[in-house]
């Protein structure tokens, strides 16, 4: 089928306001009477609070109020209600809010917050799940079994395990009896930060009329609205949440994060809005981190290369509150098999409380972490089987008819991982790699990937569409634009569905829960699939309304009418027609009587039959829409310095249908570079006391212009999916997924060294090269 507007490199509708500095982000919002908050972080990562003395702070100039967590009995959380807006009698991580000052200016708030004196009784600190799981470990949450949690979640009482998830397919662990060859390993994906350029922040205003107004740089306005209403005991309808432009998220601005804390603070100064924006340091220490996942994995195969069994154990150092990490762990667990089929699976995931910043969503939501293990082990298993790693994978790829670990059956419409792999093979592995020379070792590596969204059974996306009197169309939705380009997708999909040029389609620019259609939250690479489908459904309804009115105007049956974006006309005589713009408010007849209704429609779309996991087997319809892909790296290791240089990185994904090639390529390149950062230098390091050692860009180094590979290949395969608009699938997170194992597999190819954890800094590489020499 030929598309008119799909597949074209349309520019983003928001690009100009961003290029001219006119786009308004959270920190750019000014409200008359606004106050500023500064928040105190504790000296210790785990300690009892003995006393907080706020008296000197209260006397500081400009101070309106000093707030602590004293007497706070709020417990919040959508999954596990384990969080308090501010530490109450103990602190559980070094970025936790202990007290706050509200002042007329930010400088005054900052000056006063330093005057707050807190006495602590330090407790043992655990920065790693393995420590926190030891039998005699001090409990970070003393009575976690009392917390309200979703019925699908189970804690292990009297331990630091906040949730245990298990999946069994086939004979589970016994499946290994059928294996001829087995490999296993322990892989660590350390804590990192999404480190979006815009630090997170919120404004909350308790108004005299008993309503709350909030602004947040968040991707989940409706969750915030619900949590604020619930926490402060008021109707959801009396809470209004605005989302301005968002300066990047990559996941960590999802779920409820800082908003309840700011609301708690603001509740002490009713009538005045309170703003808090994280410093870069606070963005690292006191919002949400990423990863922190250790994977123990074992794979078993027959001699002919057929995989038979997988066993995986995920230990997630989830941080001080499990509300956000719990689903990351679950997703990491049931997707730990990667894009391969295993008859027997035994997978366990432990979300463990640690005295570190809570882990939240971060590009890939558990997939990159556990599939790092899978893809490294696939190479190792191929070696042990003495098989070509591509051929070995080909035997095992998920394909039409395969059953994934969670029990879902794969269809042709789920895409073709093997085709993606072929593209990478051609791009990276054609011909011979360069011979080792005086300065460098050369290597090439490959990894395949799969990811489905982590949805929720109610994770729908709404769309409201209205036609204006000139035949142009305005679209309103609740999806948060965070740089991923959903506005372009909305415009292009609507243009195609309505057969109206994109210039005549206006896409909403901000979210306001007072006007915006409901959306669960904009995460999981789901917007194109669900949001795009909601647009098409609304467009179909709108066209039906136009036809209904036209049938009265043209005195013909609706099913004899066709629509082309400009006219509704009689199929057998197109000269009998009425202009669409004349139908927009209903049709006004020559005698001034209006017939028909306003051309407006609303619709929503969710993942069809998405379900909760079964409590016994952990299986269920947990993915629905998978995107498959493959990535490959050609690298060099500098002998003198140990530096790993990526010379060529190639990615291929079956995204069903490319909506906007320029944007899709940009998404891939951004994700790949983020993955290169993770593989080679990014790690948020904690000292033994639980303090972050590098909460700033100077030492949490994210890639720069000079770090980009000289050559990048991006390729899309288009086997249309059954759910998304025109067959499109999600692509937001996927480019990040297999970068790490592709590079580590290439490092093995170059040096013969197997790495089990990242990042591979020059120092680690040099050390490994030296050790290798010693052992030789």
């Amino acid at each position, binding site marked *: 089928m030929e598309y008119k507007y799909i597949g074209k490199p349309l520019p983003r509708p928001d690009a*100009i306001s961003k290029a001219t500095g006119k786009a308004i982000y959270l*920190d750019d919002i000014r409200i008359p009477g606004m106050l500023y908050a500064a928040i105190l972080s504790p000296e210790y990562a785990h300690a009892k609070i003995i006393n907080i003395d706020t008296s000197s702070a209260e006397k500081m100039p400009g101070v309106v109020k000093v707030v602590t967590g004293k007497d706070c009995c709020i417990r919040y959380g959508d999954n596990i209600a384990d969080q308090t807006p501010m530490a109450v009698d103990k602190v559980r991580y070094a970025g936790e809010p202990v007290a706050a000052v509200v002042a007329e200016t930010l400088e005054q708030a900052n000056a006063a917050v330093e005057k707050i004196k807190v006495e602590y009784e330090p407790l043992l600190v655990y920065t790693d799940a393995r420590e926190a799981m030891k039998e005699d470990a001090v409990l970070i949450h003393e009575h976690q079994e009392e917390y309200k949690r979703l019925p699908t979640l189970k804690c292990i009482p009297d331990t630091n395990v906040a949730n245990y998830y298990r999946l069994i397919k086939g004979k589970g662990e016994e499946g290994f009896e059928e294996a001829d060859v087995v490999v296993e390993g322990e892989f660590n994906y350390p804590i990192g930060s999404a480190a979006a*350029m815009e630090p997170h922040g919120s404004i909350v205003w308790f108004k005299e009329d008993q309503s709350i107004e909030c602004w947040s740089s968040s991707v989940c306005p409706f969750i915030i609205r619900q949590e604020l209403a619930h926490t402060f005991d008021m109707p959801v309808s009396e809470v209004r949440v605005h989302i301005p432009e968002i300066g990047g998220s990559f996941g960590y601005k999802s779920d409820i994060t800082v908003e309840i804390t700011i609301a708690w603070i603001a509740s002490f100064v009713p009538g005045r809005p309170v703003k808090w924006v994280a410093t870069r340091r606070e963005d690292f220490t006191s919002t949400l981190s990423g990863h922190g996942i250790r994977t123990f994995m074992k794979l078993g195969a027959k001699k002919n290369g057929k995989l038979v069994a997988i066993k995986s154990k995920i230990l997630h150092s989830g941080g001080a509150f499990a509300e956000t990490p719990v689903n990351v762990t679950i997703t990491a667990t049931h997707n730990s098999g990667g894009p391969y089929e295993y008859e027997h699976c035994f997978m366990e995931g432990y979300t463990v409380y640690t005295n570190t910043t809570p882990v939240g969503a971060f590009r890939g939501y558990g997939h990159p972490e556990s599939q790092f293990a899978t893809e490294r082990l696939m190479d190792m298993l191929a070696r042990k089987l003495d098989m070509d790693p591509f051929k070995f994978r080909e035997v095992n790829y998920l394909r039409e008819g395969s059953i994934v670990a969670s029990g879902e059956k794969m269809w042709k419409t789920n895409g073709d991982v093997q085709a993606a792999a072929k593209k990478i093979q051609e791009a990276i592995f054609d011909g011979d790699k360069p011979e080792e020379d005086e300065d460098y070792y050369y290597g090439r590596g490959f990894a395949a990937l799969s990811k489905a969204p982590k949805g929720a059974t109610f994770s729908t996306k709404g769309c409201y569409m209205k036609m204006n009197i000139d035949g142009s169309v305005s679209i309103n939705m609740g999806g948060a634009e965070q740089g991923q380009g959903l506005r372009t997708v909305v415009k292009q999909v609507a243009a195609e569905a309505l057969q109206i040029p994109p210039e005549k389609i206006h896409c909403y620019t901000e979210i306001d829960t007072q006007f915006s259609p409901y959306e669960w939250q904009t995460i999981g690479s789901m917007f194109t699939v669900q949001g795009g489908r909601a647009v098409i459904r609304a467009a179909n309804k709108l066209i039906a309304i136009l036809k209904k009115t036209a049938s009265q105007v043209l005195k013909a049956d609706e099913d004899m009418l066709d629509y082309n974006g400009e006219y509704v006309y009689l199929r057998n005589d197109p000269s009998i027609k009425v202009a669409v713009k004349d139908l927009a408010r209903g049709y006004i007849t020559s005698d001034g009587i209006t017939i028909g209704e306003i051309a407006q429609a609303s619709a929503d779309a969710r993942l069809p039959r998405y379900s909760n996991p079964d409590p016994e087997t952990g299986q269920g319809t947990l993915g629905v829409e998978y995107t498959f892909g493959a990535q490959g790296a050609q690298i060099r290791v500098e002998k003198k310095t140990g530096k790993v240089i990526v010379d060529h990185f190639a990615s291929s994904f079956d995204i069903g249908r490319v909506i906007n090639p320029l944007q899709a390529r940009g998404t891939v390149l951004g994700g790949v570079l983020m993955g290169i950062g993770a593989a080679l230098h990014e790690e948020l390091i904690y000292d033994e006391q639980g303090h972050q050692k590098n909460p700033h860009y100077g030492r949490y180094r994210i890639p720069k212009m000079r770090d980009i590979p000289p050559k990048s290949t991006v390729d899309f395969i288009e086997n249309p999916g059954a759910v998304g608009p025109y067959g499109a699938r999600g692509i937001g997170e996927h480019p990040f997924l297999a970068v790490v194992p592709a590079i580590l597999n290439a490092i093995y190819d170059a040096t013969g060294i197997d790495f089990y954890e990242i990042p591979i800094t020059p120092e680690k590489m040099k050390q490994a090269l030296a050790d290798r020499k010693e052992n030789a």
Partner: protein
Amino acid sequence: MAEKYTFKVNGCERTVEVDADTLLIDVLREDLQLTGTKRGCDNYTCGACTVILNGKAVKSCRTTMDKVQGGEVITVEGVSNGKELHPVQKALVDSGAIQCGFCTPGIVTELVALFDNNPDADEDAILKALNKHLCRCTGYEAIKDGALLAKQLIKERQR
């Protein structure tokens, strides 16, 4: 102690009364409501706050007001001419160099200053200038493409 500072911003003379150690970024954002200049870090590492001071790209988060006294500042808001985008802006828009856009104002002002000083800036000079800026979204390729296109557009305009 608050002192008076008079300087030009985007062509208009402005006077503010602030402490001597006040940073230009705060004067721009808080006193003059020019919020196009962004703050992305605490320690001069991200480049989001870049503005043009006396013809040179500077980080406004490490520029104290004594350096601005009597000077001329151009922010991202002062780069376009009414509705007509500066070639740098146009090139970044057309190249797909803008995703979340938080890094964009700093990159716009950096490149405007670069090409104002040297319309023939070669690729190395361009990369050197851009390497001062962090962008978490794009993977930089499109930004580089945008910079090269901007150079071309500027050349064409001069002809």
